[in-house]
């Protein structure tokens, strides 16, 4: 444990962290690797109640399709000739970008990312093609039982306007049909600027040299002045609910079970609950895997997660499992019983110690690439945490007491309020497995 803390401290000590114009530039140099990984984001705060989250996702998908200075073929030729790649994605509160290249190309790559973020073309033909593709993907997702079940659970616990809400596919398609290029251009102009910009670079670079490039490419970029407009709280229900989504030809049924949590990443019970949840369903050694898979042979995979985690809004606690048609009711009953017993009795000292050890070791192992280091540095900074937080995390895990874990489980995990969303070829002739 102390080894990992010491190592994390050493890494943090190597980080160069400085403001460059509107940007917070974080550089972790590894001068022998030959590779450079870039991860960055700006705060963009789309309004989910207005459907702006979908518009922002389309903006992100169009950013690599040409700028006002050159078309997408010219940009693609440049990237391909220097062996570089980049992509953009949309998050509930931010627009993110990720890129990588060989070390000689880092200046060119940062220039292209800047140009694409700031001067996208949004050509109508590309918008039409993308809309066609997204519509196809949305229709295809109506056959994805895992997505259907999880989205149904999210709808159950989060209102429209909360970032963890998931609109039904027909509503997504309707929104998509009503969007046009002018809407895209307008939201880009109004919502995407250098607000709270973070740029993380890990790999074979010199911090001073890359800082000069960032100053040149981003130094004059202005903020859009957006502010968060989403709902932050989960709903209350107070009793178990079950939703079945019948999808023909899907013998493996995806099930999402859980409920919203009135908890954000900043709240003190988060780390104790994270540990408790890990004991329940964090890996192959967890109680759920040991019982539902190993002992009962009911599933290929089951895990429990805290998902939709943010420092801004409430999250979801959920168990995800696949069950073959004939094993659905038996599996659901077994899961319900296991969770109820687990919450009542809590974790043992041995389980807590093992969870701590696992999560600490895993914290190290998961940094075994420049891409994963860059992602972790970015996420930490997006949350507004100091860099030291990365070094302190193992100690934070070590400090949690068993009573705190069990108290967090009793307070936050409520078996009687778990909702069940199941999608697949469900035999409605059988018992429903409900414990109301």
């Amino acid at each position, binding site marked *: 444990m102390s080894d990992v803390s010491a190592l994390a401290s050493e890494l943090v000590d190597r980080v160069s962290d400085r403001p460059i114009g509107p940007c917070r530039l974080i550089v972790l140099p590894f001068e022998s690797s030959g590779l450079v990984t870039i991860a960055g984001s700006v705060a963009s705060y789309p309004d989910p109640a207005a459907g702006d989250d979908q518009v922002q996702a389309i903006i992100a998908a169009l950013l690599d399709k040409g700028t006002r200075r050159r078309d997408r073929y010219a940009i693609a030729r440049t990237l391909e000739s220097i062996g570089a790649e980049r992509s953009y994605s949309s998050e509930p509160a931010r627009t993110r970008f990720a890129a990588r290249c060989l070390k000689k190309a880092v200046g060119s790559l940062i220039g292209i990312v800047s140009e694409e973020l700031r001067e996208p073309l949004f050509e109508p033909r590309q918008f039409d093609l993308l809309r066609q593709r997204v519509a196809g993907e949305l229709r295809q997702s109506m056959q994805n039982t895992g997505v259907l079940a999880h989205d149904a659970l999210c709808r159950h616990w989060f209102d429209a306007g909360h970032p963890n809400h998931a609109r039904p596919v027909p509503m997504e398609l309707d929104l998509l049909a009503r969007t046009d290029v002018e809407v895209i251009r307008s939201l880009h102009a109004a919502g995407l600027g250098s607000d709270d910009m973070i740029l993380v670079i890990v790999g074979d670079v010199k911090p001073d040299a890359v800082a000069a490039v960032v100053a040149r490419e981003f130094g004059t970029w202005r903020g859009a002045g957006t502010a968060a407009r989403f709902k932050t709280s989960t709903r209350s229900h107070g009793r178990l609910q079950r939703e079945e989504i019948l999808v023909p030809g899907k013998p493996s049924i995806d099930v999402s079970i859980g409920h919203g949590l009135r908890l954000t990443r900043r709240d003190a019970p988060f780390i104790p609950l994270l540990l408790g949840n890990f004991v329940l369903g964090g890996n192959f050694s967890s109680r759920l895997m040991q019982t539902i898979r190993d002992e009962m*042979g009911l599933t290929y995979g089951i895990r429990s997660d805290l998902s939709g985690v943010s420092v801004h809004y409430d999250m979801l606690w959920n168990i995800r499992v696949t069950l*073959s048609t004939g094993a659905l009711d038996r599996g659901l009953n077994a899961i319900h019983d296991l969770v109820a017993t687990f919450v009542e009795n809590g974790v043992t000292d041995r389980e807590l110690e093992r969870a701590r050890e696992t999560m600490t070791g895993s914290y190290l192992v998961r940094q075994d690439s420049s891409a994963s280091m860059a992602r972790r540095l970015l996420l930490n900074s997006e949350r507004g945490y100091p860099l030291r937080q990365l070094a302190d995390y193992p100690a934070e895990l070590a400090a949690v007491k068993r009573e705190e874990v069990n108290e967090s489980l009793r307070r936050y995990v409520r078996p009687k309020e778990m909702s069940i969303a199941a999608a697949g070829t469900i035999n409605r002739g059988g018992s429903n497995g409900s414990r109301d």
Partner: protein
Amino acid sequence: MYRTQAPESSHCTVDGVSFIRESGGIREYRLDSNGLTILFLRHGVLPVVTFMVTYRVGSRNETVGLTGATHFLEHLMFKGTAKFNRRAGTSVFEILQRVGAQVNATTWFDRTNYFEQMPASQLSLAVDIEADRMRGILLRGEDVEAERTVILNEFDRGENEPLHKLFHEVWATAFSAHPYGHPTIGWRSDIEAVTAADLRSFYDTYYYPDNATASVVGCIDEGQTLELIRSAFGGIERAPRPMPDVRTVEPAQRGERRVTVRMTGEVGAVMIAFKTGRQLDDTSIPLDVVATILADGKNSRLYGSLVDEGLASSVSAACAALRDPGLFYIYATCVPGITHESLETAITNQVTQLVDEPPSGAELRRARTLVAAQAAFARDGSFQIAAQLNEAIAVGDWTLYPTYIDRVNRVERDDVHRAARATFRVDQRTVGYYIPVRGEVDE
């Protein structure tokens, strides 16, 4: 703790371990006592290591009635040995995950691999477990029964996915005799019927040190690692008999084959597959370049003619790198309203152009740069490196991995043209359509 030292400039000398060769910084050793191959690469800056044992057995080695045996056995390898088992509180997962290791295994046509990505200081745990289960698994009847339902659920999960089904059907149609024709997970009836005795026989045929390679990639001491492996594996006996050959050679295909998958769904797809040679043949690297020219990046031929033209929402191409002759395949998903036939025609037109004339010098350079950059990116992390080494081991020569970029850079226009002409022949192709239907489909 933070290490940036270069690898040792010369190979290590450890009693009972013979140095064989070195390529691209990777050193090959062999245990004198039983023939276990060891590959070592010093890599990275964090004290993290990936340990991977690759057995040269996959679904290629399965016979009729025993399809899926390799994969079933892979699951049972986690049920434990006399030393590492759940009842004793020492299961593989408990021991390894406790220290933060990422642990799993996979089965493919030519190989099965077991791996642990973990803190370097804990490597001995993984080495002990892999050595112990190489010859010591319990393989109890009760474990087989419990795992059978788990695997059937895994099978059902695959059945949920139309594209997964299309992939299987194309391979099954293309290969009428060779075992590449059956899915790695096996046919459902074989999974339901296989016995503990069948699996024991399979295990006792293939799980020996002289049929395995232990790869170590990470920031760790080479000499100590070799000592550790020798100590744990050195006492295991060699296989008592030579490994059985796969005798079946796929007969020459005498004409185009077609297959259709109808399942509930929304978006159709087309897969066109051509018979290829082995990965060790001269055409395999040029075919990787062909795949890039056709479908990698926005300036690729198929992206331009299918995606940009609004016929497909995505397109990809790849040459399946296998020990025996495999398939080069092109896969595209239809944009709503576009017929499978028009998508197939558009793909065929692009393939034909590459047969008719070689790519331009600029196009070749673009493809070579892309392939080389992707290969370089794929070296970011010990697990990624070990995973690629694993595939090279499976096809018969691990040095394919460290020499890959150089060989890509040596590919010329004529090589690409020759490979395209040899591969893209109508009588050697299998065309698969996934046709989505609404509502229930008769089984």
